[in-house]
């Protein structure tokens, strides 16, 4: 389950996702790699979201294993 996102971040995300057909919850699911379906026009956005999340996940994991 997705944690509730800060309201200001949520509004920002909604602005950024305009035109992609993605809602914030869908965007987060795409980013986390748990989405099973997404709007067809959201391909580039979904891929970039996923990449950002994946890089963040790995960076945090690496940082934790270093400390």
């Amino acid at each position, binding site marked *: 389950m997705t944690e509730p996102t*800060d309201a200001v*971040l949520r509004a920002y995300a909604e602005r950024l996702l305009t035109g992609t057909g993605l809602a914030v919850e869908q965007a*987060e699911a795409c*980013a986390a790699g748990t989405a099973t379906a997404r709007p067809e026009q959201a391909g580039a956005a979904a891929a970039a979201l996923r990449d950002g999340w994946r890089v*963040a996940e790995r*960076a945090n994991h690496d940082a934790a294993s270093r400390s």
Partner: protein
Amino acid sequence: MTAEWFDLGQRLYAARTRSPVPRLLHAPVPVIGAPVAVRARSEGRSVVVTASNPTTPARTGRDDDALTLLGEMGVQVTADTWQTLITDDPGTLAALLLLARRCPPDSQHAAVAAHIAWWDERNDFPGSSATVQLLDACRARWVLGVAPEAEDRASTWRTWLHTADDGCAGLLAILDRLTDAPPLALLGSLVEDDAWTWAKARSEHTDRWDWRRPDTASRAANGLRARCDAADLYAGALLSDPLYRQRAVHSGHVVIADVQAAPAGRNTVALLCERMDARLRTGNAVTGWVGQPDDTAPQPFAGTVTGTGVHGVRLLLTLGTVTSNRPDPGQQVTLTPAAPNPFTMRAGRRRYARLYGTRRSWLTTGRTPSPTRREVPLDVLVAGAEDD
């Protein structure tokens, strides 16, 4: 460009984990030897300053007392080495400069005022060890699970970095977090430039040169060139970081491409790019390696973009003068703009300064020079367009 969506993915991850996400593996500021944490604000005609350093608890002073306390913390241009201004308040340097400008050249605080003037000049140089604007540096190092506007507030960073102290000691604690990794490559040459300009500021102070006077045309032109070089150098430093390079794929600064089977010449390589939004242009010098953007490059190759085109729905780049370690057809490579060479930059600046100092050069005689063009970093254009 998909960098904003990439960042959003990172923000959502940070929000989920309630933890800052690193943007860089390296520190975006050099090693700081003598930090002094300062907050300053104007109150009517007065300027109030609070400062501390690792050995002195925070003290507050107003106007002349403020200059005295800064001087006692080593902020004097007559000292052997400089103090690094650490602040999280974008208005601090302007308030300090106001205080310094009010101080007459022959006053007892002239050396403190000259040090503040040097801070103000070097603050234009990203990656400098003269000043660290903590909010900028934190934004370079981490992304938070908040909207970008919230990252403009120091309180947001204190919360996310678990820094309870909201005073000057807290600034030094955040600096420690920022510099807990080795600094980005190339920042060392910016520190060398700091040292050179520090020596110059000291000698000008000894010679009673007044820093309040407007720059001559030559000094202003050389200053602009040095600022452009520093911006290029800092951009190159960021691209040396494996984590940063992964984001740079989404801004077009880093390119992932497949090597094609039929290169057009012996030292030529044809590449089909994964994305169409590459920022590389004909004439750009590049560095590449077989592998991904986050790989280190044990066997890099260098080349120059000699052509661009479209093949089907993909961008086709042709590289010429490819040096050793030429990649084989079928391999996937990562390309970045070649890192700037600090020695070449310095030599160029010396030549430029000589032209300004020579009475018969094209610069000083007004003869029309042969045109050469270069990109000016956006930050420099914006700074030049500001009224003050």
